């Protein structure tokens, strides 16, 4: 594998209706909803409470339209239970609010899972050099908060730096406790290859470092996600293509999911996210990288705004050594399926039966 392998589009997917061009690659405006505002208002024969408020917000071309849109957001349903029409309204409402807030045309994609696709990820732990380009690309792509105060800076990927350890001859005979001189253990080495004692706050001049190896970690998109089980309002759930998502508008911020996740994949928005206008990525997905609000939980979603349109997640694209592989687990010829078929793979904390769809491998 060469580092510069050109990424191939992941398995054939149907083009989503109403969005002929993969949005991230093209002008975001191209993905604007086709229904005009007037059409949508006319179509509303049976307006629900939420749509009434949304409609009110859209009709009122006044200053408080923004406030009204936000108000309507308070009364919308759980995304999973919305009808297509309600999803459209919610999407329009958000696009309008975001566009005003960030001073550019923002699109909110609502493309659902594509049939025959189960997303999977594989990471070559041998190749990773710990440069953390994936971390930064992720932050830029997914509109994470980048404030200065503690807790305001959010990163979904952590690259854990792990000591290679040290084995020393001098300490060969240092046992503990030494009592009668009968050795019950030893101190001949410092921990090596110890999973989960890693550090992600490392700052060397160059990577890779001689005495370390690296283990990137993020949401594993578990097949049996404990985070979903504990959510009291079902706002975090598994999508049809295997990705575990969060409806940010329905999350009550109880943080049960954060306690339940064995991989520390989830982050809490302790304040209103700090997202400078110029840095905001306007190509968003409703369940993915759209700007979040204070008091809700977020995490990696394998760049739904990209992956549902046949593109690689940002981290896969940016990795300079090609350590990251992504694709359709149901397609035997996808890169990730080939990795699973040919390499030695393992999953992190497999004993917890969460069945991650994120695999580690080495050649």
């Amino acid at each position, binding site marked *: 594998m060469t580092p510069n392998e050109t990424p191939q589009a992941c398995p054939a997917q149907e083009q989503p209706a109403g969005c002929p061009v993969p949005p991230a690659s093209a002008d975001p405006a191209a993905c604007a909803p086709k229904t005009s505002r007037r059409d949508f208002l006319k179509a509303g024969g049976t307006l629900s409470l939420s749509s009434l408020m949304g409609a009110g917000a859209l009709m009122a071309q006044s200053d408080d339209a923004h406030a009204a849109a936000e108000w309507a957001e308070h009364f919308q349903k759980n995304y999973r239970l919305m009808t297509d029409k309600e999803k459209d309204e919610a999407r329009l409402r958000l696009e309008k609010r975001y566009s005003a807030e960030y001073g550019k045309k923002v699109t909110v994609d609502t493309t659902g899972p594509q049939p025959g696709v189960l997303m999977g990820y594989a990471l070559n732990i041998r190749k990773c050099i710990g440069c953390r380009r994936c971390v930064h690309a992720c932050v830029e792509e997914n509109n994470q908060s980048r404030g200065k105060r503690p807790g305001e800076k959010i990163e979904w990927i952590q690259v854990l730096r792990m000591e290679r350890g040290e084995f020393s001859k001098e300490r060969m005979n240092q046992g503990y406790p030494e009592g009668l001189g009968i050795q019950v253990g030893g101190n001949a080495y410092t921990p090596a290859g110890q999973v989960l004692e890693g550090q992600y706050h490392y700052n060397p001049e160059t990577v890779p470092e001689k005495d370390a190896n690296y283990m990137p970690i993020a949401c594993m998109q578990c097949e049996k996600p*404990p985070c979903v089980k504990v*959510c*009291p309002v079902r706002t975090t759930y598994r999508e049809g293509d295997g990705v575990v998502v969060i409806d940010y508008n329905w999350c009550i911020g109880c943080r049960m999911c954060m306690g339940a996740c064995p991989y520390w994949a989830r982050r809490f928005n302790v304040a209103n996210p700090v997202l400078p206008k110029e840095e905001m990525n306007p190509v968003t997905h409703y369940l993915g990288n759209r700007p979040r609000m204070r008091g809700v939980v977020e995490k990696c979603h394998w760049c739904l705004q990209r992956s549902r349109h046949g593109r690689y997640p940002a981290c896969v694209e940016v990795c300079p050594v090609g350590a990251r592989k992504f694709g359709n687990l149901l397609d035997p010829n996808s890169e990730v399926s080939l990795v699973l078929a040919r390499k030695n793979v393992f999953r992190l904390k497999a004993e917890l039966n969460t069945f991650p769809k994120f695999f580690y491998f080495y050649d």
Partner: protein
Amino acid sequence: MKQLTRFAADYVGYVLKGGTKFYAWMGSLAVLMIGMMYVFYLQNTEGLIVTGMTSQIHDGLYFANLVFLVGVAAGAVTIVFPAYVYHHEGMHKVAVLGEMLAITAVIMVMMFVFAHMGRPDRLWHMIPPWGIYSFSSMLGWDVLVLNGYLFLNLVCGFYYLWVKYTGGQVNKKWFMPLVYIAIVWALSIHTVTAFLISTMPARPMWFHSMMPIRFISTAFAAGPALIILIFMIVRNNTKFWVDDSAIKLLATIVTWCLGIALFLTMSEVVVELYARTEHANGLYYLMFGLHGLTNLVPWFWSAVVLMVGAFILFLMPRFRNDMKLLPIPCVMAFAGIWIEKGMGLIVPGFIPTPIGEVTEYYPSFVEWLLTLGIWAFGFFILTILLKGAIGILQGEIKYGAAK
């Protein structure tokens, strides 16, 4: 109907009347409550950044108090159970006071839920038909059983008071079954709260099946310890007399539940530290600190001293039988359990994080003030409820009596 409005009017009228001492007490509580409202507002405009919680340690003082107070609510059963199942005379007289305490504790728990949430404005998402009820979520179950418990205690407590007020007879046909249900229900609220944290393999410190019994034993120590203190205050400040026999029985319950709790703690320490796997890191952090971070170590050891000390004092007849000295071990037991089961249990669950990061948690001023405010609010309603209940039990509020 007319009776009912009279009841409400008499009740409120009686409760509002009081001496300077009463108004000073209620006034100072009100001041704290105003502070609480301000920081709650702050928390919901600025976000939880004004607290010490982070993505690493995301449950703190609020969650700790929540867990503790569910225990206090369940602890009220230590009065109701002997009163109705063992027909204990002295207890029967004061059973309704236990129910008032349970009502207060559950309301405080609800307030801590509000304080804890990132989006309290969306809590309706949990309530059908507008929201979704998730049967797989322990938090969902917890809210359900807590509200059920609140309802049961409101009905049992106020029905009893109402009967006393009108001078009628308790209708045992439905009252007694309801009391029995409430007794079992009390166990359920604390069991579910234990499951809330003990069902997460991601947090090895909590992931053991001893959690529910530990919760219940500490609850049945801290709850009655608080009740004894309240009874002492009631005895000394009102005309209402709580029998020595009731207090002594409560003291016995505290002693043995405290003993069991200590035994369970000791078992955990031995099992975890003997094997000393990575899973013991949380406990090790709590007891000795980890990677040089030792924030909770003094908390833990003070809790141990308080609890062991209280246990020994309870065993000494001089303290057990002397109503002047009894409050000392009660305060010690209550404080010790508040530390051990609150911060001492919740915070180390997050240290280290599942990926091995060791950070510490410092509750902010906002958190302390909000916590204090909720406790003040709790004492505020408890004072009202107890005063009303005692007035009725004493016959000072009676249908057709006052004009």
